[in-house]
């Protein structure tokens, strides 16, 4: 097809006085393959848009250059205009002669404007159509992990009409929420919350549950994953369109923090909760209970949240003296400042240290020595029990799963790279999300919010009537591909896989739904086998070459 370029220049209501528009028009008319040049004063207004449509049709224009304001807000407007005229919306090339030319310079910039139009026209010559198609997607979702976050995710997905497969490593659903004594001021206990959720999951026809099972392999791409599940000797397979990881966290009392091993006096949070649940079984009521925080874990909100709730429960049920040693109170989540004040009012004493407290044994009790920065004094406390801080760690298997799926972790090893564009719940791969403790964040309200946003993202990905994607905008040309795997290895979104074409040759294939259009692969391919329509090499180079050709 012969290229016929139509150039529409806008002088923005004649306001761009440092460009000589008649001169631009006159020169532009002489460009190669340009069949029509229009100079107008307000291209983006409705009446002008209608005019563009009719000119495109009349003059049989098949590439359109718009020279005017920045494309950021207007590109899609003009895209629609040329579609209306029967052209593929990719046959549009824009020259930014307002924001990046007239407005950016004081002097006369007629020549620069002319160059920008020439660059856009040169690029336009090489434009190819990009079709949009609706893509079949699998509407099933896989949820990995059957704790609070996993169950809630499955239930929320069901609320949106999506079916899920829930895979839990343990024999029963529940996870770690049961390790909490409760939420102060809330009647429902965590155990009650869990059992009602468990029941809801089991009764929900949309949720298929596998317990004592683990993920052996994940293959495929957003919209079409294949999951191999191992349950004892059984090997199962499921297909799904998206995956939520809710694999939780684990905690550990680090020996270097306490020197002394956990024993009858230095106890875990779980042990304290057991005591609180059955205070009658204690030999005697403990007179003093201490908590130590911020010894090795300053990143997590879990220690302070559990400590405040547990300290209040101790006050209420055991009536012991309670001392909390900490560095900084992490009150930056909903309702925690109030909880902290409540605890103080109920007699919980907070002591702030800068240097780690020294912990030793004395007369069968635990001795804690620290310099309190507020009092400016050395404080020594003898307590019957010291509840040790537990460092929150990523669960076992996180590393294996993340490397299998090619998804990043943060510096502490939890899921999700530290990149603001992924926050709150996304991974670098489309269709894979993280919620709950496995992300390293353990604040209850944030987790609930995250779960809802993850389920909404999945709904948006899988559920619209038609899942429209641009087909092969970034494409591997099979005959040029050398199967060197470079693109597979460098794609930040894991969107490229090797496939066999004609059962013979293995070549790279870019999955349209998973591709995010960065072009890293196109730049790195040593065989120049990847074409990124709109930013193809010949298009970029055409722009480069158009700069400053003799006018």
């Amino acid at each position: 097809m012969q290229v016929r370029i139509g150039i529409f220049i806008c002088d923005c209501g004649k306001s761009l006085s440092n460009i000589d528009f008649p001169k631009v028009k006159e020169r532009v008319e002489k460009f190669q393959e340009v069949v029509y040049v229009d100079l107008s004063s307000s291209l983006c207004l409705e009446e002008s848009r209608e005019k563009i449509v009719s000119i495109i049709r009349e003059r049989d224009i098949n590439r359109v250059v718009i020279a005017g304001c920045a494309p950021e807000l207007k590109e899609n407007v003009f895209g629609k205009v040329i579609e209306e005229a029967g052209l593929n919306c990719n046959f549009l090339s824009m020259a930014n002669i307002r924001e990046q030319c007239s407005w950016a310079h004081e002097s006369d910039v007629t020549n620069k404007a002319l160059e920008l139009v020439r660059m856009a026209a040169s690029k336009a010559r090489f434009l190819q159509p990009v079709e949009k198609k609706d893509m079949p997607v699998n509407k099933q979702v896989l949820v990995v992990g059957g704790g609070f976050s996993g169950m809630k995710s499955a239930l929320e997905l069901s609320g949106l009409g999506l079916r899920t497969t829930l895979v839990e490593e343990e024999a029963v659903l529940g996870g770690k929420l049961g390790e909490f004594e409760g939420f102060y001021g809330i009647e429902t206990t965590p155990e009650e919350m869990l059992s009602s959720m468990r029941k809801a999951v089991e009764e929900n026809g949309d949720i298929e549950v596998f317990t004592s099972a683990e993920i052996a392999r994940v293959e495929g791409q957003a919209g079409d994953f294949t999951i191999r599940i191992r349950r004892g000797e059984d090997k199962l397979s499921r297909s799904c369109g998206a995956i939520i990881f809710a694999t939780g966290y684990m905690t550990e009392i680090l020996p270097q923090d306490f020197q002394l091993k956990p024993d009858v006096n230095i106890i875990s949070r779980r042990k304290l909760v057991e005591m609180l649940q059955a205070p009658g079984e204690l030999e005697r009521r403990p007179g003093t209970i201490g908590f130590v925080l911020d010894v090795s874990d300053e990143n997590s909100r879990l220690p302070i949240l559990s400590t405040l709730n547990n300290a209040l429960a101790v006050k209420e049920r055991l009536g012991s003296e309670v001392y909390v040693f900490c560095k900084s109170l992490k009150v930056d989540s909903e309702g925690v400042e109030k909880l902290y004040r409540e605890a103080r009012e109920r007699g919980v004493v907070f002591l702030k240290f800068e240097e780690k407290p020294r912990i030793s044994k004395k007369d069968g009790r635990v001795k804690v020595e620290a310099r309190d920065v507020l009092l400016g004094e050395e404080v020594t406390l003898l307590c019957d029990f010291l509840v040790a801080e537990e460092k929150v760690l990523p669960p076992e298997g996180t590393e294996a799963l993340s490397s299998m799926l090619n998804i990043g972790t943060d510096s502490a090893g939890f899921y999700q790279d530290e990149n603001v564009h992924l926050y709150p719940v996304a991974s670098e791969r489309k269709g894979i999300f993280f919620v709950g403790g496995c992300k390293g964040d353990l604040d209850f309200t944030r987790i609930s919010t995250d779960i809802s946003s993850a389920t909404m993202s999945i709904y948006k990905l899988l559920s619209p009537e038609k899942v429209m994607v641009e087909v092969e905008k970034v494409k591997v040309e099979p005959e040029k591909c050398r199967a060197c795997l470079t693109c597979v290895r460098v794609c930040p979104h894991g969107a490229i896989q090797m496939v066999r074409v004609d059962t013979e040759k293995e070549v790279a294939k870019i999955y349209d739904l998973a591709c995010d259009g960065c072009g890293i692969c196109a730049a790195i391919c040593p065989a120049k086998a990847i074409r990124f329509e709109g930013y193809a090499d010949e298009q970029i180079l055409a722009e480069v070459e158009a700069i400053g050709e003799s006018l």
Partner: protein
Amino acid sequence: MNREDNKIVAFCCEHSAYQVANKAGKMRLHYPDNVRIIRVPCAGRVDVQHILKAFEKGAAGVLVMGCQEGACQHLTGNTRAKERVKYAEDLLKEVGIDGGRVKMVNLAPDMAQRFIREVKEMTEKIEGR
């Protein structure tokens, strides 16, 4: 391009630098008019060959402008661009072009002042000031 020209080709990531250039225009912050911006979807799209080609066609300087390190929408795009700029510098030195004429710049969408400073600095460099 004439070799005497002082043109700068700026490859600008549409998530950051391209928006910055628009912001500078909207704020009517004036900068040297020798810069020609080419929009790219990510600094990671820019290849060594694009940079060399720009010099081959007569550009006096090339800026590759992407997002801040750690804030690339495509995670590694801007760090790859940085490596490629480094590689291009080495290749240019081999042909006798001062390595300082190609530069990687990290910008956030609001950093209009910084954008202008970089354009001015490069202009001064190539004009030998």
